[in-house]
């Protein structure tokens, strides 16, 4: 038999293959990030630079956009401004230099807080209920399990716009219209379908022997759940939590239709930040960038869990 060089094991790619793969992925990552970079840059442009023609890649940064985002302003004639007391703060200086006067704070902080409360609230509730339900479906022989699981999935199949009218009528009747708790319940219900399906997949992966050993040792089912299953499901729960948060954080249609001011979040607000009659792009970009931050922070913080949750399945007996 002639000596045949042993083929490189598939599971250990060659350095060249690795380098090529890396290059392609990094290229894709950069291209895909460019729009976000542009928007981030726009947040620091002046109004004129933002709509400059042709578009400006290099520009002098300014905080105008952020000031516009957080305040309500009116344009006043020169003599009116000359009669006013001199500007006290750095943001007043910026506004006055454009012949504008600050008339008060905008409502963006309220909306941001609403997003935090409603987004994180519904994420926690959906993840909590979803974990319980997923465990129930995974470990117990529930009658009509397949049908019930499909029913849970089907709740996602109705276009939100369509259920908005009945929910609108129902919420008004229950007094939940334009309330944070109403939005939290709604988002939780929508998130549950994804949460239950994802978590069931993760919990199915956890071998039953651990719990059964615990039961033999005298733990109750609840204790076994808490002490044995949960710690191993943490990575799956983290991954599910991220997806739930992303949905609740970014939801637009329901929030637009079911709130007016008290419970309005950022997504219906950002695209419509109006400057002098037109869309104020630096302010919109500033709002978009700030709004993106919490979710990026949350994902990066849970990144190891997310990636570990994905690799969890590799640990098999």
């Amino acid at each position, binding site marked *: 038999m002639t000596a045949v060089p042993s083929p490189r094991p*598939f*599971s250990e790619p060659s350095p060249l293959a*690795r*380098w090529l*793969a*890396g290059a392609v*992925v*990094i290229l894709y*990552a950069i291209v*895909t*990030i460019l*729009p*976000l970079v542009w*928007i981030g840059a726009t947040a620091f442009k002046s109004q004129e630079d933002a709509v*400059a023609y*042709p*578009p400006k*890649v290099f520009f002098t940064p300014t905080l105008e956009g952020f000031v516009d985002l957080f305040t309500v302003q009116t344009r006043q004639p020169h003599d009116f401004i000359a009669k006013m007391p001199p500007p006290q703060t750095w943001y007043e200086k910026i506004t006055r230099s454009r012949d504008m006067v600050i008339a008060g704070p905008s409502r963006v902080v309220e909306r941001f807080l609403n997003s935090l409360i409603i987004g994180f609230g519904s994420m926690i509730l959906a993840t909590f*209920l979803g974990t*319980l*339900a997923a*465990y*129930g479906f995974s*470990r*117990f*022989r529930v*009658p009509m399990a397949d049908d019930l699981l*499909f*029913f849970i*999935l089907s*709740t996602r*199949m*109705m*276009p939100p*716009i369509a*259920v*908005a*009218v*009945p*929910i609108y*009528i129902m919420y008004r009747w229950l007094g939940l219209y334009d309330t944070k708790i109403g939005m939290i319940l709604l988002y939780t219900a929508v998130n*549950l379908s994804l949460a239950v399906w994802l978590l069931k997949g993760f919990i199915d992966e956890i071998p039953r022997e651990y719990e059964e050993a615990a*039961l033999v040792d005298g733990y109750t089912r*609840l*204790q076994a759940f808490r002490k044995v299953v949960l710690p191993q499901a943490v990575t799956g729960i983290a991954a599910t939590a991220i997806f739930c948060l*992303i949905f609740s954080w970014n939801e*637009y249609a329901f929030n637009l*239709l079911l709130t007016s001011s008290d419970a309005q979040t950022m*997504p219906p607000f950002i*695209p419509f930040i109006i400057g002098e009659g037109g869309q104020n792009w630096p302010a919109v*970009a500033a709002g*978009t960038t700030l709004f*993106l931050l919490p979710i*990026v922070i949350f994902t990066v913080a849970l*990144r190891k869990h997310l*990636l570990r*949750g*994905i690799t969890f*399945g*590799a640990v098999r007996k």
Partner: protein
Amino acid sequence: MTVTNNARGIADGVALRTPAAVAGRVRGLSDRAVAWLFILPTMLLLLAINIFPLIWAIRLSFTGLMANLPTPAHFVGLDNYVDILTDEDLWANFQITAHFVFWTIALQILIGLGLALLINQKFRGHSFWTTVILLPMMLSPAVVGNFWTLLFQPQIGPFNYLVGFFTGAAPSSFTMIGSVALAPWTIVLVNTWMWTPYVMLICLAGLRSIPDYIYEAAEVDRASPLRQFWSITLPMVLPFLMLAVLFQAIQAFVMFDLVNLLTSGGPGSTTELVSITLKRAAFEKWETGYASALAVILFVTIFGAANIYVKALNRVKQQ
């Protein structure tokens, strides 16, 4: 009667699974109680917020209710459904939606799976770049649709200039959002940009779940890399891929915010997805009965397709 039967069923099931030595030792809440306790809150919430409005919407679809007029709902039978099924413009909207869903899913599968395979090569820094790739999916679709209008603006936005730089075409010679030919592809482009990371993530989960020893066994059998891909990688990733496709297809079918803010369904009606028609009927024309009927038709379509799909998915999972 059924409740006790079900409860007995659960109890029997649990009893069957718990070894005899253990059964006698179980203290605290019985398994049956735990099962109910865990599943019930979810089911109740879903019933209240999902099923109840669905039934109400079905009821409304048989009326001619207009929610902005004080006149109460009056029964019109199947009129709304007949109107919908004989409306040519609406049929065109369905075609536009189908085009959108098909192409964005196809591209997401290709790019998402491809990326996952490449990332699985575990080059240096791959976890950092993976997180970077995830960014587009973390944005609000409405906000995305909105700022892409700035990016696509031929005069003041960078997209046309970039394309012009690489192809030599003048930036103002074409418009992505405003041309009848390009607009349907533009919405595919933006949706794919946004959601490919999702498919990539799930495929990556699938790839990482394939144990090494299977590949090692294939090595021993001297299978070529291509053969390994076809007979090992692809079949084992398939369930994950199919799950991602299921969620993404449903989501694309009911997609509203991104497209509405990007093109308002224009130019004309060339990107008017059915969800946009639905929103206009429900919340601008206030034709609540008609809109409910359209919603029911949409729901039945998705439900039927998903049913078939999930059965196929379960079969694939069992292999």
